[in-house]
């Protein structure tokens, strides 16, 4: 076991973890943050995307020990504590940008840094940005529409 300290959604944690434990499993199984989904466990689908020091990272490709002294943000941190949805979450709902919901947390965490840059986004740029996040339900168009609109709000 290896001792690590990290911040997750603003809360500090001190943990002993097996060296081979993936960050995705730490978040889900040890911290109970099951909003982060595992779709392929090899970095191909994007469902497990979280922010590590504000950058999108595939949590299935990163060991928990690599998150030592770093700051992790997951889907659970997007809505406000009183339950108000993040503008991106609202836009996805309004545009029907989710069906089964399984890819949605990874989509949200991939797009959040783009939105927080404050620049209006064009549809083609959004398509490129989410090309590493698989969705089997929606055909992507409504996700793209939602992100474009959220970027202009």
């Amino acid at each position: 076991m290896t001792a690590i300290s990290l911040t997750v959604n603003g809360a500090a944690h001190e943990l002993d973890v097996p060296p081979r434990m993936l960050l995705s499993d730490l978040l889900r199984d040890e911290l109970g943050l099951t909003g982060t989904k595992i779709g392929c466990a090899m970095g191909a689908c994007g469902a497990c995307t979280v922010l590590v020091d504000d950058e999108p990272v595939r949590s299935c490709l990163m060991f928990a020990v690599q998150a030592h002294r770093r700051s992790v943000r997951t889907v659970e941190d997007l809505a406000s504590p009183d339950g108000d949805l993040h503008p991106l979450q609202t836009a996805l709902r309004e545009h029907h940008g989710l069906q089964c919901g399984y890819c949605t947390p990874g989509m949200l965490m991939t797009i959040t840094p783009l939105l927080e840059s404050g620049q209006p986004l064009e549809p083609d740029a959004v398509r490129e940005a989410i090309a590493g996040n698989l969705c089997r339900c929606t055909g992507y168009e409504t996700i793209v529409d939602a992100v474009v609109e959220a970027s202009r709000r």
Partner: protein
Amino acid sequence: MTDWQTQAEGRWSGKRVQRLEDPGMLTGATRYVTDVQMPRMLELAFVRSHAPNARIVSIDLDPARAVAGVRAVLGPADVVDIQPTVDILHLDGALKTPRFTLPGDRVRYVGEPVAAVLADDRYTAEDGADAVVVELEPLDDAKPIHDDIPNDRYFHQAASHGDVDAAFGRAHHVVRRRLHVQRVITSPLETCGIVADYDAATGELTCYLSTQQPHLARAALAEAVGLPVSHVRVICPAMGGGFGGKEVMLPEYLCAAVAAIRLRRPVRWVEDRSEALTAGAHGKEAEAELEAAFGEDGRILAMRSRFVSDTGAYSSGIGAYVEFMVGAFTVPGLYDLGGYAYDTGGVVTHKAPLSPFRGVGMTTSQTLREVLLDDAARSLGIDRMELRRRNMVADGAWRTVLGEEYEPGSWRTAFERALELIDYEGFLARQAAAREQGARPPRLLGIGVSPFVEAAGIGSAGGAGGLPGGSHDNATVAIDLSGRITVALPTFSHGQGHRTTAAQLVADMFGVAPDDVRVIDGDTARTPFGMGTFGSRSGVFIAGTVNRAGRLVRDKLLRVGEILLEAAHEDLELVDGAVGVRGVPSRRIPLAAVAGAAHFAPHVRAELGDPTLTATAFFDPPRPTHSNGTVAATVEVDPDTGGVAIERIVVVEDCGTMVNPMIVDGQIRGGVAQGVGLSLLERYVYDESGQPQTTTLAEYLLPRATDVPPVEIEHIETPSENGTGGIKGMAEGPASATPAALVCAVFDAIAPHGSAIEELPLRPETIAAALT
């Protein structure tokens, strides 16, 4: 029987109501099976066959038992009590392929489970699985895959309707087409999974299961592990996609259930992506041929088809039957055929078992037929759309050559509207100009058009041509003492927004808002029996059952209103969460007070006799609904690389009365995306020795955001005569019609230069090779 009363006012039905499901999914709060955790829960990992066809010489489980943290290991001898599973269809002459949970004698495909290891965590369970030593001895490929099926063909059926041979005899022109539809993977983002938990005190087994059919899964689990159905509960907290691939009782589930019972500890197995690709829900693979006899005027005199489904090692669940039977039965489509003969069946092979996948059978028949019509038009010198016009049935009801009764649809109207929207004539002019320019390299532009009809909501009377697998459902509607309405459904939504749709319907029946309606699905202990979600059936069955149950409860509420308000039944209405005198807002009683009076006011209770404000109603539609539409696509093919760029996709869809057009559009867009994958990208590959070659998402190409274009959608609403409230089932039509549109478009683009391609997907290298 289709009276919705207040729904006629359409306050919620027909609107783009935002989904009740979304907030939980968007915040990460929604729980899927993989998110279920229990104290003392063990994780399960499987040892799988690495050979496609071999005798099991020995399995040494002891090395796994020696791994620290491994709590138990199951081999074939440990699960002999589990009943083998067989497919659930009962057809004359069909041979069964019994599937043992962990077969001890031989393995039949790469990825077949042979042992199971249980440990404190998945990492350790996989360590244990790696330690198991399995000795396999390759078997001669001449040996039948199942001893009772000497030639590997487990089912075959042929029939002829009309005088087909005579029609071919007098034909002016005969056109033939062969098509191999590839093996694809259903690939929901959430893989399969189970958490099994056994209560030794009550003898009840609870399984959290990612299944489209909670009640059928419950029955299958009970039968296999030898428990009464009453002692098995299936819960699906939420499901991350299914598409037909979550309808089969897997041996992995049975292992988890038996382990939980034996060990008295909860057991979780979540399929990883590699397992899903190697041994999970494969779909579609079929070899198909079609020939058509044409008169001099381009009229189709008759067609003959042949379908063979490559079923894999076992026919399980509803298996490949829905592929090769639906394929054969849907060849007529929207065309007036004088005669039709089919020859269809399935063979077992050393591949993973085939599962249903969205657009079963229809995708193959639709693609084959539309490609053949384009071929015929080219060889007859008739415009491709004109040939369709000469053969397409008129809008309205239609009886096919197979005797299937289509309810009225907008067949021709949808087709012509799609041609307008895609600007067929304008495109032809642009295409001709590009061809005439003689550019080097040439610009290869193509257009494809695919008119479809989709039968859905099939009752116990069955579907086209006598396909078994019809169904029926119940639903429960209840008012509690707070005046809120609860609806319990045996269907299970896995992305289709059933809770929202049902809440819209019920809100209009009871004069409340959708937010006031609690919809429960995915739990056999809290929902009445029904068949689950498949075959675009849920809209039809939810509407049918909820309408019937809702009216029983509504009538009782109105009866209480009569007593309390001393008003006649016909003067009462349900509005704004109350029973009131129509048009007199001051004389209203909130539903909570109505429910309270029914239970606690002695005179009301005495008059009612039975104050229960709950009703469960049954629905079994006598005939299916028929939605229809047309998919049109334009593409440009790169003459050097063979790459296909999709310019536009237009869908005109008619699914009758829409409850939530936003959700309908979502089903269309998602279906088109899967059609893009099937046409251009996805293929599961076995090499000649039976070894899978596409075992990760790096090799198996699912459509990405940059692969799927925007979809231009327009609706026509021809209300259903067979479905309650005018609703027609939909969700598979656009998925199954999109490949035909894209394949026809690509073939049109390369027609002046290329030779015939007979295999999907249309990969760049396939197209480039055809162009040389």
